[in-house]
Every structure is written in C-alpha cells, then in structure tokens.
C-alpha cells in the first residue's frame, strides 16, 4: 500500500517536470519570423495628423502594443495584403488583441487626405488608425523608422505609383521598438512572435 503511494507521487513529480521542460523548451526554441531588436530600442515618437485634422502622436498609445505600417491608399497589392494580414493577426490574438493597435501612415500626402486614409484603414479594422500629414511631417515620421518611399511615374490609369518599404514595426507598451516584420510573413507567424513577446512581458 505504502509503495503505491510512492509511485503515485513520483508520477506526479515526473509529469510536472515533463510539462515544465516542454514549456521551457518551446520558449527557448522560439525563432522570430521578424527581425528582433536586441536589446530593444526606444521607439521614436512621430507626430502626424488624424482624421479630425488634429495633431496625433504615437506616444498617445503608450501602454498598448502598436503595429506601425506605412503605405498609401491607391496601393492595390502590397498595402491591402499587409492590412489584411494584420486584421487576421488581431482575430487570431483573441482577447489579447484589445491591447494591440494598428497604425497606418500614408506616404502619399498629395492624394491621401486624413479622412480618406481613415476611411481606407477602417475597412480592415474598426480600431485601425489612419494618419497623414504635411510632406515634411511624413518625411520625418518615415525617417524615424528607416522607411523609404518615392513617387514612380508609370504609364498606368491610376496615375503615379509609389515604391515604399513595407515592414511592420512592433512597439511595446513601454514604447520600446521590439521587432521589424518583413513583407510576406504570414499571420500565424506574426501571432507567434507577438505572443512570445507578450508572454515575456507578463513574466
């Protein structure tokens, strides 16, 4: 009888140790799909114009996770792909998504009014934030994150096109720039990276 009690206890200890090591191993094994900033660096603040024509600063969102992207609303391929991916990321994050905000900065001030940018991003998510600004403000906001963009004159019915870098910049609630995600990374991989960072934060 006494021997059986021992066996049961041993079983529980071994079980717990097994689960703990699997959890530890999985965390230790995490490979980021994005490019990690190690150590994290302070996220440069940027100030642009919101849909009410009011100045808007990134520091407004301190305390939340921010997914910062740059693009333009006449962009039919890359920008909708990125915004759709981020919509799915938020869906897949479930309850954790309420602490995550998507911010889209237009690099096309000539065509994108503040109201137009906001309407555009709202189609991808109710709480997505669309911003624009003067050419100077946009240039400063782009330079802060190493975003490059240029007008490309082409023979197309849409008028000119824009070339631009299409990374997603991940900023944590302490306004630290943690991760840079290249174009084309699939939503589940972005979710894995975010959840890993969020779990580190919670520990």
């Amino acid at each position: 009888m006494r021997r059986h009690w021992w066996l049961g206890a041993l079983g529980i200890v071994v079980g717990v140790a097994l689960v703990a090591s699997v959890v530890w191993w999985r965390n230790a094994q995490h490979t980021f799909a994005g490019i990690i900033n190690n150590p994290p660096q302070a996220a440069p603040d940027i100030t642009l114009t919101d849909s009410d024509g009011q100045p808007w600063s990134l520091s407004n969102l301190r305390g939340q996770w921010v997914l910062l992207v740059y693009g333009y609303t006449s962009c039919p391929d890359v920008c909708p792909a990125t915004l759709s991916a981020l919509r799915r990321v938020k869906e897949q994050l479930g309850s954790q998504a309420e602490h995550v905000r998507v911010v889209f900065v237009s690099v096309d001030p000539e065509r994108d009014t503040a109201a137009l940018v906001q309407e555009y991003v709202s189609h991808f998510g109710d709480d997505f934030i669309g911003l624009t600004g003067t050419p100077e403000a946009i240039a400063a906001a782009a330079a802060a994150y190493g975003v490059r963009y240029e007008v490309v004159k082409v023979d197309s019915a849409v008028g000119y096109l824009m070339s631009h870098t299409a990374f997603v910049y991940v900023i944590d609630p302490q306004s630290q720039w943690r991760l840079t995600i290249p174009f084309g990374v699939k939503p589940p991989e972005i979710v894995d990276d975010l959840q890993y960072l969020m779990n580190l934060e919670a520990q």
Partner: protein
Amino acid sequence: MKIRRWTLFGSFVLGLWLVACSSAGSTAGIAVTEAWARPSPMVERAGAAYMVITNGGSTDDRLISATTEVAATVELHETKNEGGMMAMAPVDGIMIPANGQADLEPGGYHIMLIDLTRALKAGETITLVLTFEQAGELQVTAEVRDE
C-alpha cells in the same frame, strides 16, 4: 495484375482530366485555378485579382490583357521586392512557360482593376476575360475574399 495497373493509371489520368476541366477555366493547354480578388469597399481605389495559370502545352504563352465587367480599366502589374523596397510597375504581359505555371499572388504579379464600377464584397464572384497570345480568350470566375 498488369491489367489492373493499367486500369488504375487510366482512371488516374481520367481523374486529372476531370479536375482540369472543372477548374476556373481552361483553353488549349492553359488552365486557371485558385482565382480570387481582394474586396474593394471603396470604388475609387483599385482592386486586384490573383490566380495560378498553368500551361500544359509544349509552347510558351503570355497573358497579354484582361477585362472584367466590374472595372473600366484592367492592367497587368508586377510588384518587386528590391531590398525591402516594394516597387510596382505595369507589365506588357506575363509569361506562362511551356509545361509550367505563373503564380499571380500578393507581392508579385497581379491583375489590377481600375475604375471599379461597384464595390467588391467578400463572398461574391466576378468574371474576368483573360487574353493569351497563343491560347486566345479564357473566361475565369474569381471569388472575392479576404486573404
């Protein structure tokens, strides 16, 4: 045993042929599968359609133009990733190599729908008519969906 193997092979070929016929569209070796278009809630913003075009024939072909009832202008474009810089430009055509395929996908080749006649909503389907240099016209149906 030998007969049975041939029967198996025969039904495999027949199956393949049936699959090819039931896809979005096919003509003279050219077949289109997985055709879809992105929802475009704002008609003033261009839409995009994507698909896989396969060429089962022994000669190269080229997609040279497309039309659709939902857009006044349709252009073929290519996005290239040039060291992180996403550059998009119209192209004259999209090569479909003999016994090969062309993938039209986000961040690559796409069919751009300009001056939409109406908003494109997820769940509906649109019809596109593709024109190939060799194979001529091919009608395909694309599902509008969030991807």
